[in-house]
Every structure is written in C-alpha cells, then in structure tokens.
C-alpha cells in the first residue's frame, strides 16, 4: 500500500534514500535509532551536529518555500522524506520544533526582519527551538497562561513559569506565550514572544519522567529579557498566532511514524511467537485488531495526503486521536504478551527494555499535543459543527 508517486517524486525518494544510507551507515552510524520517544535525552550533542549536516546538505525544512531557505517540497515529498528517514533509522530530530512549529509560524505571521533573523539558523540546524506554552495552571486551558511580559526600557521583561517544555535543556530559543495585558479578556491579552534561552533570567530544571529519562523541563523566567520587536503577529495577538500554528500539521510526518509503528508491531509478533502467546485465541484477536488498526492509519494518512483543498479533511482531523490510542493499546499488548517477563528490566539502576520504554512513553501520547479530550472537542466542534462548551 504505497503513495502514488510521479517520476520526479520517485527520483526524489531515491535521492533521499541514497544520502541517508550513506550518512547513517557512515559517519553517523552510532546515532541510528537513537533519540526517539522515551530516549530523547541521549546523544543530544551528536544529534545537534547531525542536524547541521542535514542542513548543509539541504534536508532540513524541505517543505518550506524556497524563498525562506526550504526546498519547496510538496506535502507528498515531505511525507516520502519522512518515511525514508525512519526507514534509514534516522535519529530523533532535535530541530523539529523550529522546523515544524516556529518556522511556519514566522512564515505566516512574522515580520520580514524576524524571518531574516530566525529562519536561516533553523534551516542550517544552528539554532534549536523549544515551545513555551504549558504552565502549571495552563494545560488544556492554554489561554490561561499567567507568565507575564512587560515592556521595560525598550525590552520585554518576563516573569513566570513554563512546564513540560521538551528539549528546553539544550534549546537556544523559546517561543513563549506571555500575558501582556492582564485587563483584557484572557484570549486577547496574550503575546507570542521569542526569547533567548541562554541568559541569566532563565532557569531550566529537567523533569524526570516515569520512564526514568528527562526529556522535558520546567522553565523559570525571573527577569528574563527579550527584544521588543521579537513579538510575532503583534502585541496581544498571540492567541491567534498560537492557534494558527496548530493548523500547520498536514500529515507530512504520518508515513514515517507508521513505518516506526510497523516495526514495533513486528516486534510484538516476534514476542508473541517466542512466548507462545500467539497460540492463544484472545491474543490472536488482539494482534489481528492491532494490525487492522495499523493498516487503517496508513490508508487514513494516504487519503489525507491525496486530499486536495485548503481545509483539513475529516480523516486528518481524527489522526492524532486514532494513532495515540492505537499506540497506547499496542504498548499494553506488548506487556500482556510478555506475561511475568514484562517486569524484567535490562539492568540496574533502571535501564528499561525497548518495549518497556514505549509501553511507558505511549502513556504520554494521549496527553501531549492536545490530549484525547481536547482532540475530541476539536473533532466535535470543527469536524461535526457541534456547539462549543459555554465558557
């Protein structure tokens, strides 16, 4: 079941495959498969170096317009590249927040000066970004952000706290949702500010996750500074900018993600055969159901990629909810198949097996990037036109 490719798209695939093969069998072979979910805090420096090599060879930000340093690739080509990347066991991309969130936001809402300052180092892999959205009191209710920015002497001074900030430990910049007007209704007093991370007013404290690794962090802002013209989309207009960012995901990463899921599924089948669980009628049902779900996701993705028109199609809207539940169920199935062996870790102090890592990490899948509950609100309201919750 493959995407239909034109001759140019097919040669694009070959080009990507050849380059990735060469790099990941050569100078970067130690990075293969590292830095995935549950393993994001490993090989960070090496992965930053890898991002620069990708950039120099023109493989970062390939979906951006050429005018902004991208390749102007179509969504199909992006999907193909992502698939090849995963196929080649490419490491977790530390630059993905800049590439997929900040870059498109600046292209859409930024000033010319902001684009010129910030886009080139994202393309080259020289600057790493993190996302300053969630706060202790602003999770699903994102508009409740309390981190405050005030203009003092021609620059922004920021006070407050962000949390669950992935990659804050090694990022150079953060786009921070700040309250800039406390008197306005809560959606209207927010600004989207670009803040350098390496400064005195910022304290990053990694948070250890249930799997033992620390991929996200708390970020404390205590008099942190940002330039006055580093507000995106205008002062007090940050909510609109943040919501716009959500619409940029059009499914380019789905094929790569499915390739990863496919490999996990294959591991599960191996486990089932090894433990003899594959002869159990109930496990057979569950494994078959997982396989059916995996294929459904693939067709959903292929339908999304072939959908023409500016609107997000219904099969795109359900994507996050469907894959995250599927993946969480697969993690549980893996442990169930192992029986008592599910408990044995790789070794002390707390080195988990690969299956244990994704079993635990998949519990986050249904929470981050819009929890299941938020996804269902979005599907209900945007997909089905149901009335909003009174607020």
């Amino acid at each position: 079941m493959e995407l239909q490719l034109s001759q140019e798209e097919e040669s694009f695939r070959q080009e990507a495959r050849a380059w990735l093969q060469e790099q990941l069998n050569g100078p970067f072979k130690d990075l293969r498969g590292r830095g995935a979910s549950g393993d994001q805090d490993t090989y960070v420096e090496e992965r930053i170096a890898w991002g620069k090599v990708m950039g120099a060879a023109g493989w970062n930000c390939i979906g951006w317009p050429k005018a902004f340093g991208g390749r102007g690739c179509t969504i199909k080509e992006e999907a193909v590249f992502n698939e090849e990347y995963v196929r080649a066991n490419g490491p977790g991309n530390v630059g993905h927040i800049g590439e997929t969130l900040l870059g498109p936001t600046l292209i859409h809402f930024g000033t010319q000066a902001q684009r010129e300052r910030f886009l080139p180092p994202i393309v080259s892999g020289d600057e790493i970004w993190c996302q300053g959205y969630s706060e202790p009191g602003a999770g699903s209710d994102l508009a409740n952000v309390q981190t405050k920015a005030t203009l003092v002497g021609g620059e922004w001074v920021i006070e407050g706290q962000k949390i669950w900030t992935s990659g804050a430990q090694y990022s150079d910049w953060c786009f921070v949702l700040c309250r800039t007007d406390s008197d306005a209704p809560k959606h209207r007093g927010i600004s989207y500010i670009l803040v350098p991370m390496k400064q005195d007013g910022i304290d990053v404290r990694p948070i250890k996750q249930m799997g033992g690794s620390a991929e996200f962090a708390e970020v404390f802002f205590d008099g942190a500074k940002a330039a006055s013209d580093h507000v995106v989309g205008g002062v007090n207009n940050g909510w609109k900018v943040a919501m716009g960012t959500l619409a940029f995901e059009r499914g380019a990463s789905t094929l790569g993600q499915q390739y990863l899921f496919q490999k996990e599924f294959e591991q599960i089948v191996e486990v089932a055969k090894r433990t003899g669980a594959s002869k159990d009628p109930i496990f057979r049902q569950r494994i078959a159901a997982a396989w059916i779900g995996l294929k459904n996701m693939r067709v959903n993705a292929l339908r999304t990629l072939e959908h023409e028109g500016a609107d997000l199609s219904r099969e795109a809207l359900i994507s996050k909810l469907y894959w995250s539940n599927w993946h969480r169920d697969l993690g549980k199935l893996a442990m169930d198949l192992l029986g008592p062996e599910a408990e044995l870790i790789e070794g002390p102090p707390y080195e988990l097996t690969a299956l244990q890592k994704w079993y635990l990490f998949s519990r986050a899948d249904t929470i981050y990037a819009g929890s299941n509950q938020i996804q269902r609100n979005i599907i209900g309201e945007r997909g089905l036109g149901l009335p909003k919750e009174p607020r």
Partner: protein
Amino acid sequence: MEFSFSEAQDELRRAARRFLEVASSEERVRAAMETERGYDRGAWTQLSEELAWTALTIPEELGGLGMSYLDLHPLMEEMGRVLLCAPYFSTICLGANALMLGGSTEQQERHLPGIAAGELTATLAYSERNNRTDADGVETSYSWVGTECVLSGQKYYVLDGHTADLLIVAARAKGSSGTEGVSLFLVPRDAAGMNCSWLPSMDQTRRLASVNLDGVRVSSDALLGKEGSGWDLCERTLDLARIALAAEQVGAAEMCLDMSVEYAKVRKQFGRPIGSFQAIKHKCADMLTMIESARSAAFYASALAAQGEEDLSEAASSAKAFCSDTFFHCAAENIQIHGGIGFTWEHPAHLYFKRAKASEVLFGAPSFHRERVAQRLEL
C-alpha cells in the same frame, strides 16, 4: 493505487443520494418491512431500469456497464445509509459476482444480461443451520445419477432466498469433508423438490430464507466452476460480498452519526444543546474517528478488488471486522444519544441498530475475521 474517490464516483454518490432519499425514504422502508417479499418493486424497477445500477459491474459485452468494484463502493455506502430494502446486494454482490468469477461463457451469457437488466434476481445459498462460516458448514450433499446431479439438504440464512429467481447452492460430494468436495450449482427457483421460505428475522430490512432441497435434480451444465473446487469460488465470492457489505456498513454508520449530531444540536437540556456537553460531543467524535477509519478499510479493500487482485481475504476480513464493529458501535450510541425517543418503534434508530447486528453476523462475525487475519499474519 489512488486513495481518493474520482470525480465520477463522487457524482455517482450524489446522484444515488438524491434518488434514494425518495425511493428509500423511511416511510417506504417501513412499508417494505411489512411485506413478505421485503422490498418495493417500484423502487427496484427504477434503480435497475432507469438508473442501471444492476448493470454497473457487469461487463459491457454481457449487457452491463463494465464499471469497477470501486465504482460500486459509493453506491453501497448510500444504500446502507438509507437501509435500502432491495435484492440488490444478494443479486449483484453474491449472484453476479459468483457468476463472473466462476461461470462458463455459456452460463454468463445465459444469466448476466438478465441480471444487468434487472429482470433476474439471484443469491448464494452457502450457509446452513449449523451456523458455520467455513467449508465444514456445507452439509448439503450431491450425488450423480447418470448425467444428473441430485441435491439434498437444507440451506439457511439465505439472503433473499425466498424471492431470488436463481439460487447458487453449495453442496458437497457425499463422503467428502473440509474444503474438498464442495461444488456450486445453479438452481432455478422453480426446480422440483426445492422449497424456499422466508425466515422472519429481527432485522426487517433484509430478508433471510431457508431453502429445502429434497432430491433436486439438475443437469451437469448447472455446475458452476470446476467440480470439487466450489469452496474456493464460494470464498472468493463471499470476500467480494464482505467488501461491499463493509461499504454499506460505513454508510449506515455515518447516517447514525448524522442523526446523532443533528439531534445533539437541537435537543436542549439544562438550557443548552446537549451537543455542547462533552459527554455527548466526545461520543460523536469517537464515532467519526471510527467511521473515517472504517471508510479507509473498506475503501482499500474495494480498490484492491477493482485492481483485480485475486486474493482479497485479508483486506476483506479486515474491512468486515472493523466496519461491523463501527456500525454496531454507532448504531448503539445513536440510541443512547437520542435517549427515550431513540428506544421507540416510531424513531428509526432501532432500524439501524437491528441492521447493524444482522450485518455483523452475516458472512462471519468480527472475531471470525480477526482470526482469519491472524492466520494470514502466520501467528
């Protein structure tokens, strides 16, 4: 393979919806439900003669339009949407498919033009009272007497078996077992010794029948396909039927969602539409998530069939398992979202709920199909 419907397929869907809104309105469905025949002859004549739907998948040289199985897909979705009561599914997805897959030129020339014109209805009689979906379920037997074949036994759960003009009957050679020894026979409705009668069922929108064969004699040209290889033909026919049924289930599930959403927007409690409550909104979101995924499963299977892929078992079973679960889930949630009114005879929700269960158990329940997928995965 392309993963979107063509413009022509979208147009067929729109035309079908316009026609079926009238020809298969709730009122007409309820009227058909009350009859033993189980369908509206006027609507049947219109859809076969005026719209040529019966001709759609039949080759042009046999009086059809020679369109693909993927072209049929939107039509099946639309038929499911309105619970069309008609012998279309049995005639086209069982009868015509079996003839196209296994019929000799002579057999195809004799029967397919009539089916295309809407003059002949047909069905497949493979299942029996033992409730099995595999070859061992075929207990009806045949034996040769000279150049004639004598069939004896009882077929059960035969779709539209009491009205079909032509029955394709699965029987096994006496003494054989498993997939060996099963053959299919074309038996005309008026054959001496064959007695077809309606089996009243919980779902009143689709008719089941029992077929008693008491020494029914047919000549050797009644044999469909090679003697002894009938189970393979039966299975391939069933897989095509499962794919069409899956598409039908998607359409019906989507209708359940549309009913729910519409109601949730207008029904007010605590001073606001119930659709603004997450308890209802999230149910609807889950329904949509299942429906779009079910559509993907059915679409993929239809597209494979349209490509002429010979072994459709995995795709058909995946689609049938997932679409069955989806339709049942949506039909059940539709009742819950409607509350008391959804539980009444007057409201159409129960018609969908009943069709959902009937479709779920037809041609193998989801667990049967998941096991079949498990075998394909070599577990």
